[in-house]
């Protein structure tokens, strides 16, 4: 049977839709593909569904300038036409921005793009930027964060080391109204550093009235 055409779509998540969970994003994007009337392929078996695969999950509350999904098409559609159809079927804040075909046997999105560039915008009020820089430096020196996971009544604490996961930054900079923190993470088979947990751990250490205004994945990159 023909493997069809593997269309890789890049999309943005902006505004309030940053609060969608990964599953909600997946479901919404599948509906966008159907509304766009792209000739998607479906799986065979008991519960037939669209052949579609997504990249790494974003934390709830984080936006993105470039996420990816691969959808298998049973017929060739000009990528520009596919993009136009997708854009016409998408809400403004969950918008496809690029389409291109990739090889059938190309690596999955997770494997192709294991690197994430993050930008956090902080409302630091009167807290000097130096204090924020120091809080992040101290956290990086610690070398890990502890993430608490609760499932039902059970609580599990997981230690996440920075080595191999935090590969650049954090770079703290003062803007006109806010402080930005940029850093780069690597997600491999042994897990990733959650950017929201990293930021909140640093802010806890700063012991000052600083709040996270936004968190955005600026880019998913090759290694």
């Amino acid at each position, binding site marked *: 049977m023909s493997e069809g055409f593997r269309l890789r779509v890049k999309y943005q998540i902006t505004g309030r839709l940053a609060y969608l969970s990964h599953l909600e994003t997946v479901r919404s994007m599948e509906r966008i593909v159907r509304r766009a009337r792209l000739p998607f392929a479906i799986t065979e078996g008991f519960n037939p569904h669209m052949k579609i695969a997504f990249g790494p999950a974003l934390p709830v509350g984080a936006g993105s300038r470039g996420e990816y999904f691969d959808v298998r098409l049973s017929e060739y559609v000009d990528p520009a036409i596919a993009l136009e159809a997708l854009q016409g079927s998408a*809400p403004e804040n969950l918008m496809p921005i690029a389409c291109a075909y990739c090889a059938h046997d190309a690596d999955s999105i997770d494997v192709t793009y294991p690197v994430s560039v993050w930008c956090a915008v902080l409302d630091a009020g009167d807290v000097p930027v130096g204090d924020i820089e120091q809080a992040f430096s101290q956290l990086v020196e610690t070398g890990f964060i502890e993430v608490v996971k609760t499932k039902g009544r059970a609580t599990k604490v997981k230690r996440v080391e920075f080595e191999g996961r935090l590969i650049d930054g954090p770079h703290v900079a003062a803007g006109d109204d806010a402080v930005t923190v940029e850093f780069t993470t690597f997600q491999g088979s042994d897990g990733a550093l959650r950017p929201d947990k990293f930021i909140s751990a640093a802010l806890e250490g700063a012991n000052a009235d600083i709040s996270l205004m936004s968190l955005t994945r600026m880019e998913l990159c090759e290694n």
Partner: protein
Amino acid sequence: MRESNLWQRYALLLDQVEKPSRYLGQEWGSVTPAEKEGADYHAVLAYPDTYEIGQANQAIAILYDCLNANEHIYCERAYLPWVDMIALMRGNGLPLASLETYTPVREFDFVGITLPHELCATNVLEFLDLAGIPLHTDQRGDDDPLVCAGGPCAYNPEPFAPFFDVIFVGEGEELDVEAALRHRELKAQGASRAQILRELACIEGVYVPSLYEVTEQEIRDERLAPGARGYTTVTPRDADVPARVEKRIIRDFDALPALPRQIVPYCELVHDRLAIEILRGCNRGCRFCQAGMIYRPVRERNADTVIAAVMDGLVATGYDEVSLTSLSSTDHSTIEQMLRRLNRSFSGTGKSVSLPSQRVDALGIELARLAAGEKKGSLTLAPEAGTQRLRDCINKGVSEDDLLRAVTGAVEAGWRGFKLYFMIGLPGETDEDVAGIGALCRRVYAAAKDAVPEGEPRNIRLNVSVALFIPKAMTPFQWDRQISLPEISHRIEVLRASFPKKGINLHWHDSDTSYVEAVLARGGRECAELVEEAWRRGARFDAWTEQFAFAAWEQAGDVCGIPIMQRATCEYEEGAPLPWSHISAGVSEEFLRAERARAGAGEKTPDCSFTSCSQCGVCPLFGMTNVLEATRVLRGECA
């Protein structure tokens, strides 16, 4: 008016709540302010539960479409936030706002709250309080919105009466728009709130509770302790207010848009699929069923209209599943044809069609094969009672052979999972009837296993759900009582003993919630005090098992003189005025009494959409008859 947009304040709370997608709005298909620039009348439709429950409600979707279709009206939506968000909103002094524009609900002209079931009563108060709207109609001034209700509970509106300015009885497609436009007109003329309510009371199907006098009636039942209150009945204060409010009905159902505007949610809903209503009303006449009495007569939608709506709806929404909804979808005279056409068109596309539940007798092998197409999850059937005698008493009209035939046919068609619904506590029930549930389920399980083709695993899943009978207003059992706690305990014991230890999964419902539901279902205006007292004692989200606080209801019952258990287990006297006697769904009281007598005698009454008229009184009152696409053909033993 309408100057505030509270989104920025809500956004600050989203990091701290479960499922923030409940509060985002901006869904595909929602009506934007830009589309309604010329509208000067602002309505908000509300569901007194969370987004994922309310957004799945078909009535809200239909009325949202009808109201927004009018050029003068911009209609938005609002739902009750979950408890975590409610706590944060109260802590931050943030009022409840609409989803489309995040305008405070109290700034709207019209707030329409649907009342889907009795257990939403405390949520109505939570909603109004969170919105900053005075709870009682007599506390509201000219600047407050018109607070309206509709839905199934409008047929006994009294436990809700003091909280609403206006209650819509019957189908709202025309009524809601008519009332909203009349309100707009009266406001523009500078009419006072009192004048507005009086004028609205003249519209057919509108009940204005504040224009009625209340009288307390004694309940003569020895189960009620001396000093406990009776129920109230109402009569109009003035001659120009209708003594009896007849329901509104849509005569040409097929002329309504089959595909109302669809909003595609981000958050997963309880029924997360396209829903197309294929018929309205059900005349099967199950004697416990309120929906079967209040939505008469039957009106079927044309098959071509349904198919076109399904096709257009799937393209417009991006859903991959459609449900053909109604009270009894398998009774549609062209259901097989519709399913066959849809399955043919969906073949190989990953799309599927489903039916909400199937009549046991109507489910032939062909229908079982067609329902759900390629995806076959679990098939739901509702025999309701364990013995033929009791099934005849409740007029269920299905036999054991029907059930076994339906299940074996479904197994042959590929189904392996079954859900069976039963009730205990039905009027006239004996231990033999209760034990009959287990015996019947054993035979169903064995028949299903035997029907699995050779060579295939015989892994049949059978889930049995048993609910407690709740007498509802406007049914033949409206005078009957609920069984007491000792009776429940005994019958549950009998039920459990009748089931095998392995193979069948038995589940029964919580009796405490059923008692509260029963009190409110047959309560008068005195029960509004009970609702308010329970809410003030912390009751809310009563339909959510983990949130239900029975102690709050019991304490409220003691304070208000309405002991919950005693009231629920009281029989009402035939012939005496009832709390809902001023509301009419068209079915005559004589018919209900005759049906109760026939239940006692174990006599069945046939469905008039298949055979001859059963004299319920609806058709002559509304000057219409059942509207069928083709002659209905009885299947099963009744045929």
